[in-house]
């Protein structure tokens, strides 16, 4: 919402400085986004008179002028065709900065002739689009005056942001009222004397009172619709509105001045009564923005015998709009239901100044004043004769009445404000306040009251209870004056607050970072193509911001693959990324950790090491380390296949707790997936499913299970087995380890060999087992018995001890 200082002063009698007004606006909740004085840009531009104009000796299209600045006569080179002796225009003197291009003027030679300034066009001063010639001012314009003063441009423009609850401040008068309440001056009375017209007003029928409960209309006949007067044009232009014609400008002016949208019809283009009705499905209207809208029954329109002429409360129709030849007009001042306007506006995707006011709820009690003020302006600026006012429908009641305990300012708002001051504040904002005694009878404020009965003004639809009154009181009394009050706290040291899930995430995040992985945060949405290999994705946005951000990710890998691709393209030799976030499945959002390893695992080194790439075992190492950190029983996990289609079929697996619970998948990413991400090297990956992790068991507090390190030293024995090629090493290790659970504490595979000495279709696996004696050392017999068990257990899997 923009307005100028002079405009504000039409409604507010004040001596306050610009800064005071600016601060007060922000203080009461009308946040100032900017204040700009257009006159400041015109420093150094003065009203000047051309005394002589001669052709430039070196250039046909230039003239050499002598210009009277009031203080001196300067020589100026000028290219404008209309420059001539006797013209009064605007001279930019050396040092002035041309607003349109930021160029600082200086004394310079133009084609060999000294020029001491520049005669300016409207466009150069950003006052209009005209650049065909220099500005021509009236002959009596005061030569030597600062142009900004002469043109009344020293009028600061405020730009304030209005929150959606404050429709009343979408008009300059509402802002003035708030400022007056804040002590910045006095609200001037509004002159809204009704126009006693002659003859019947326009015929109006309301068939859709739920969309438009009240409609006031007045006809003015015999108008002349020329340009609006300078003062009106200047104000409209100052706030960025383009003057169009007196009639249109009046509706815009009243809307901004008083927050009251109006519409004006060319009466000659109407046929029969104005009917407020629901649109018919499929009915079309060409709106004033030159677009055609197709309507339906939920939209309230103003129509006549020929069709729709107004999308009620949102935008008028082109075909009945006023023009220069308009002589008779119907002025519309109606009340449209905010919800209907909001729905219609959303449905049509049509925004307008009128809609933004009606959907927030204009003052229904202002129809009488609104039509009077509009008609008076039309009569004053365009002439003509007014009819009587047609008042159709019934004005809705707005403005609640509520009991209010002024202590609430302190118990809710935190600021103690004396009751009398609260009454003063509320009354200055237009509220009616009546103190009541314990029986509900009116009493004087200073005679001991029990409760205040407060009635909100008709323009404060947003106020619907005591809390709103607290806000009114606090914002005028100064919300910044609310003292800080410490929250109570329990005695002692603060207790831990994190949930097990949060602790798990923190632990995993820092473990991953400690292992050399860099945490990334990638978009929750990916493209359909990126989601496709990961099982599409259960959630596709209806209104994505782009095709790249359309589907909620079904896995963390696509987002990370994109990041890997970008990093490699930027020349990163090695990429180790992880992300902790949610994957979005049909039934729920699941906490997930994704890891990607790409590029060089190790760079080539001087110690004879060649550059190494990541393998599936690097991914497995990360998976196990992270699972270990997460408290998963890593030793008991099963390594199983079926990681899925996005993985290398021979170099991937899942880690499961029991056959069904998949805790993680790891391995090399399938080359066809990599290709889709424009990646050509190998990428190893892990996805850890946090929701599948077993929770911490038991409620035994901090106590660990009892443990004493064994007194006797552990012994190791090596075994080498010949096994079928197809046997998974993990199965053999598991079998060996389980051969004697009392004695064998560890079994570690340390060699895999095929080739000389190993028959075709077989491989040799070497395992070192660790035996822990208990009370006594193992005897030779005992060791042999264990060895036999190991060999027997291995034999069940088809393994033969190598000789």
């Amino acid at each position, binding site marked *: 919402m923009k307005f100028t200082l002079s405009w504000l002063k039409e409604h507010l009698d004040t001596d306050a400085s610009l800064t005071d007004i600016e601060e007060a606006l922000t203080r009461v909740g009308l946040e100032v986004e900017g204040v700009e004085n257009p006159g400041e840009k015109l420093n150094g531009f003065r009203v000047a008179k051309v005394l002589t104009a001669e052709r430039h000796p070196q250039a046909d299209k230039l003239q050499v002028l002598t210009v009277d600045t009031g203080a001196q006569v300067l020589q100026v080179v000028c290219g404008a065709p209309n420059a001539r002796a006797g013209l009064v225009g605007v001279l930019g003197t050396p040092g002035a900065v041309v607003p349109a291009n930021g160029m600082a003027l200086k004394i310079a030679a133009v084609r060999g002739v000294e020029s001491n300034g520049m005669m300016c066009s409207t466009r150069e001063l950003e006052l209009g689009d005209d650049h065909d010639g220099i500005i021509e001012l009236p002959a009596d314009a005061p030569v030597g005056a600062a142009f900004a003063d002469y043109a009344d441009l020293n009028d600061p423009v405020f730009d304030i942001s209005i929150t959606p609850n404050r429709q009343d401040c979408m008009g300059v008068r509402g802002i003035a009222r708030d400022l007056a309440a804040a002590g910045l001056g006095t609200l001037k009375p509004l002159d809204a004397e009704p126009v006693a017209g002659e003859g019947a007003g326009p015929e109006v029928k309301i068939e859709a009172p739920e969309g438009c409960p009240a409609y006031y209309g007045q006809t003015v006949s015999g108008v002349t619709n020329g340009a609006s007067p300078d003062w009106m044009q200047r104000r409209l232009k100052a706030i960025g509105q383009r003057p169009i014609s007196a009639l249109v400008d009046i509706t815009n002016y009243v809307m901004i001045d008083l927050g009251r949208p109006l519409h004006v019809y060319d009466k000659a283009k109407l046929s029969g009564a104005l009917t407020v009705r629901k649109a018919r499905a499929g009915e079309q209207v060409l709106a004033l923005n030159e677009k055609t809208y197709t309507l339906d029954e939920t939209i309230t329109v103003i129509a006549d015998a020929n069709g729709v002429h107004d999308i009620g409360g949102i935008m008028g129709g082109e075909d009945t709009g006023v023009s220069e030849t308009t002589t008779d007009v119907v002025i519309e001042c109606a009340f449209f239901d905010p919800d209907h306007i909001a729905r219609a506006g959303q449905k049509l995707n049509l925004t307008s100044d009128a809609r933004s006011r009606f959907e927030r709820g204009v003052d229904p009690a202002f129809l009488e004043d609104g039509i009077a003020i509009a008609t008076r302006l039309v009569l004053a600026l365009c002439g003509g004769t007014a009819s009587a006012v047609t008042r159709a429908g019934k004005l809705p009641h707005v403005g609640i009445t509520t009991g209010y305990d002024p202590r609430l300012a302190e118990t809710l708002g*935190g600021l103690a404000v004396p009751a009398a001051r609260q009454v003063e504040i509320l009354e200055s904002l237009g509220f009616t306040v009546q103190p009541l005694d314990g029986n509900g009878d009116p009493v004087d404020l200073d005679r001991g009251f029990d409760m205040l009965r407060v009635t909100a003004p008709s323009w404060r639809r947003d106020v619907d209870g005591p809390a709103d009154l607290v806000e009114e009181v606090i914002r005028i009394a100064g919300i910044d004056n609310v003292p800080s009050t410490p929250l109570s706290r329990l005695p002692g040291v603060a207790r831990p607050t994190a949930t097990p899930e949060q602790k798990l995430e923190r632990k995993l995040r820092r473990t991953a970072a400690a292992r050399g992985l860099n945490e990334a945060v990638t978009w929750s949405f990916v493209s359909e193509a990126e989601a496709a290999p990961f099982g599409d994705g259960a959630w596709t946005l209806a209104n994505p911001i782009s095709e790249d951000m359309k589907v909620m990710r079904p896995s963390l890998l696509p987002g990370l693959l994109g990041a890997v691709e970008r990093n490699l393209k930027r020349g990163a030799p090695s990429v180790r990324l992880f992300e902790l976030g949610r994957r979005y499945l049909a039934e729920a959002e699941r906490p997930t950790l994704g890891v990607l390893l790409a590029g060089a695992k190790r760079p080539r080194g001087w110690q004879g090491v060649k550059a190494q790439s990541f393998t599936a075992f690097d991914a497995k190492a990360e998976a196990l380390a992270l699972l270990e950190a997460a408290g998963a029983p890593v030793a008991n996990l099963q390594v199983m296949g079926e990681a899925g289609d996005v993985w290398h079929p021979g170099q991937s697996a899942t880690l499961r707790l029991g056959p069904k619970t998949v805790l993680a998948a790891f391995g090399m990413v399938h080359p066809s997936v990599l290709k889709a991400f424009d990646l050509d090297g190998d990428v190893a990956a892990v996805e850890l499913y946090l929701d599948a992790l077993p929770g911490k068991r038991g409620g035994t507090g901090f106590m660990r299970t009892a443990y004493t390190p064994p007194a006797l030293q552990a012994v190791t024995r090596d075994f080498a087995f010949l096994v079928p090629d197809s046997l998974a090493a993990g199965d053999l290790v598991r079998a060996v380890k389980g051969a004697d659970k009392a004695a064998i504490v560890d079994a570690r595979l340390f060699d895999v060999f095929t080739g000389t000495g190993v028959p075709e279709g077989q491989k040799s696996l070497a395992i070192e087992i660790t035996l822990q004696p208990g009370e006594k050392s193992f005897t030779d017999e005992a060791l042999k018995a264990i060895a036999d068990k190991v060999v027997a257990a291995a034999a069940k899997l088809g393994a033969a001890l190598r000789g």
Partner: protein
Amino acid sequence: MTTDLDQLRTDLLGAIDAAAGLEPLEAVRVHALGKQGAITGLLKTLGGMSPEARQEQGPRIHGLREAVTEALAARKAALEKAALDARLASETLDMTLPVDGVAAGSVHPVSQVMDELAEIFADLGFTVATGPEIEDDWHNFTALNIPETHPARAMHDTFYFPREADGSQKYLLRTHTSPVQIRTMMADKPPIRIIAPGRVYRSDSDATHTPMFHQIEGLVIDKGITLGHLKWTLETFLKAFFERDDIVLRLRPSYFPFTEPSAEVDVGFTWQNGKRVIGGDPRASENGGWMEVLGSGMVHRKVIEAAGLDPEEWQGFAFGTGVDRLAMLKYGMDDLRAFFDGDLRWLRHYGFSALDVPTLSGGVGA
């Protein structure tokens, strides 16, 4: 005899000194102390001597044996040391050669700041709550006193999922963390003190907006809570977060459908080297200004009612702010979009070490 012994001592000690290596030294030892050695031979003669002679010769022969043994040991040690020194000298390496680096991991600033916030608010008795990002219309809007036609809905550029079979628009991406307020009030009994950090989404993308970003919500529901408590909480939190005592807040009346009264909160800053540094009172500084950091207010009674609590009994405050923005203000990043790009160079520069765990004793900044 005496002269013989003295001569032998001189000869042997000379031979020991002259031994150039361990092998010649061993030969000297064998020559002196071996089974056939000179001293061994002398020792054998002691048995055949008269007691008087033995009394005289015994100490002399034993003295010789000890002297030679000591000299042998000393020479052996010297030779071994020389050999070791020579070997070590031959093993010299160029210690300026590089070592293999260990990949340095990092924690994302958003995660770090969320941990910092959890730490600060834990001390104030707030727990951390979460909620779904794919949210329903009721929790995101309706329960927060934002009915369908409310103009505030237009302020939230909402991402929607396709309509349900019955034509209703049920699911959307939460536009703020405020629905967690509703979920918490419905699940827990007051008194409530929570913060709720997480991803939120708005259909907005330019230099300072990304379609996904992070917010943190705070909610206190209790008896007798006022705007004054809100102000104190925000001041305390910002002072702890920026580790500065000169945090100055300015509350401005504002509007959120789910709070009444509502306030936007500005924090004072000063310009330092082209960056805004939080702290100081702009009213007392030529070089400062206000920056909006938080939206807040007293929870609207309709919201308390919607969550199934009695607004006559319970009241409280709520606030919300951008986590990414807090990170930028504290650590000086200036491009929000870089947060979500995953550029390793950026992650390493602005990220945090795994061991930079925020604690109250060690500080919540790193």
